[in-house]
């Protein structure tokens, strides 16, 4: 059995949380399969790499080059494929982030590996691995069996528990990345000013048509601010041009899994529910007591958002100031 490789994603020189979850999965794989796990970081200056040791990956290789500060699909694909060959890696684990989704399929083809994306859970059957993953935006799950010798899995963030850090730092081996292929590269990174993304937030406050117009979304934003949450939106309000598509939650938007999802004036169309139903806790505020959103809500208020939300903001502020 070859090695297990965990690709640790960095952005702005910081290892992302989803990478530590993938590291923990890699360490679990290694224990189950009696194999070794190694981490790989591609970038320039990257901090806190040794923290990967906290999640059961004792050794990390950092391939460093000033040209690799930002993502390059062509460079990453080649570097990872070369690493797989040189280190006789059989299994690659990648966080299912925008980078992971772009890269995993390219690596899989380059090294002739079977691929399963957005995995939630794994079972081991001899040489085969069965991964459980959502389809139809989470309306159903499938078990897929990957039976090739080499396998690539991307792991859905916020699902695989990284657990408590163990306090044992990883050994970091920094090497120069040579012969890099920059035929496709990120030349500029544009950050949305001060905004949290729904895909990464632990709390999301979403507004729907019940907000009655874009001018009332300040209520959604204020509640989100009071909770340190991201702002989400239903497809109806995105299609109406009230909110940007980056905020859309649902089957043609983002599938999210925060600890808390607050739905304001959202009726709960099937494509919206698909995108948020696996949130840990769901709160719904909607005038219509028959709205389908109440079928998935842990706590519901069948009232007017324009009355309930200002009261909720006040109450949260009171709580935070205590």
């Amino acid at each position, binding site marked *: 059995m070859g090695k297990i490789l965990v690709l640790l994603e960095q952005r702005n020189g910081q290892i992302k949380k989803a990478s530590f979850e993938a590291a923990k999965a890699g360490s679990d794989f290694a224990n189950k399969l009696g194999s070794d796990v190694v981490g790989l970081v591609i970038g320039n200056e990257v901090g806190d790499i040794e923290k990967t040791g906290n999640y059961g990956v004792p050794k990390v290789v950092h391939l460093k080059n000033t040209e690799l500060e930002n993502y390059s699909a062509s460079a990453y694909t080649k570097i990872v494929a070369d690493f797989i060959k040189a280190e006789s890696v059989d299994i690659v684990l990648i966080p299912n982030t925008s980078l992971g989704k772009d890269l995993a399929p390219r690596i899989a083809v380059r090294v002739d590996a079977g691929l399963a994306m957005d995995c939630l859970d794994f079972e081991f059957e001899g040489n085969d691995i069965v991964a459980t993953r959502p389809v139809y935006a989470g309306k159903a799950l499938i078990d897929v069996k990957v039976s090739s010798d080499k396998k690539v899995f991307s792991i859905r963030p916020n699902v695989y528990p990284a657990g408590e850090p163990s306090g044992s730092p990883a050994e970091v081996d920094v090497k120069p990345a040579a012969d890099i292929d920059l035929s496709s590269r990120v030349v500029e990174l544009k950050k*949305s000013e001060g905004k949290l993304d729904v895909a990464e937030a632990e709390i999301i406050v979403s507004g729907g048509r019940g907000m009655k117009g874009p001018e009332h979304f300040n209520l959604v934003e204020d509640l989100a601010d009071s909770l340190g949450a991201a702002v989400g939106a239903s497809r109806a309000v995105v299609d109406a041009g009230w909110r940007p598509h980056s905020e859309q939650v649902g089957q043609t938007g983002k599938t999210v899994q925060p600890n808390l999802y607050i739905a304001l004036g959202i009726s709960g169309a099937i494509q919206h529910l698909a995108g948020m139903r696996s949130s840990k806790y769901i709160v719904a505020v909607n005038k219509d007591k028959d709205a389908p959103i109440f079928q998935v809500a842990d706590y519901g208020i069948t009232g007017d958002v324009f009355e309930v939300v200002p009261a909720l903001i006040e109450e949260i502020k009171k709580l935070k100031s205590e």
Partner: protein
Amino acid sequence: MKIAVCVSHVPDTATKVNVGAEGKSIDPNGVTYVVNPYDEFAIEEALKTKEKIGDGEVVAISVGPDANKETIRKALAMGVDSGVLLKDDQFRDSASVAKALAEEIKALGAELVFFGKQAVDYDNSVVGQMTAEYLGYNCISVVVDFKLDDRKVTCEREIEGGKEIVSTTLPVVITTQKGLNDPRYASLKGIMAAKRKTIEEKQPAAAENKVEIIKMKKPASKQPGKVLGSDATVVPELVRLLREEAKVI
């Protein structure tokens, strides 16, 4: 210039998913199939690019059963010049779909290829990138802005909390995200013209699947919780529950 646009035929997003009798895919009864929503942006961008260049040919390609012709026909009605169905009634994993597409694109000589960023059935979001890899093309995924200047390609791609500006050159595969453009509606004239356009049927090489679906299941159903009340007076109770019971704030 030849431009390829790869399309898939998928259940409408309003579909209620039920597991079919064999337990591996959805029950197709009562399901309406449509052009994959993200592919509409791919079709639109292909047409816009052809119009901008003022010359060229756009070919829609799909892998799957006869029913996929319906989606190809819609692409033709929007203005795509011709269609190719790589006919296969059997299951293909993403890599096998990509390989079939790559062979056809190569034969066609298309240096610019558009895909929707993912199909809303299996949600893999990989076939575009895999096809690029089989072709040895560059690839930019999840694109919300596309610019072609001679052979230079500059795109904005959506990432968590922002955008990346990516620079590359032809030949390239682009996967399209909502926000890139507003797909046109097929005009009556377009629909009539589509009837005269050809959809060529071809047999792709047999699939060599590395991945197999062994089971489809419904996620554990969520029990509806408590309705606390119908006005703002229950807000303190809601906050207490979120704090003490759910422990999420």
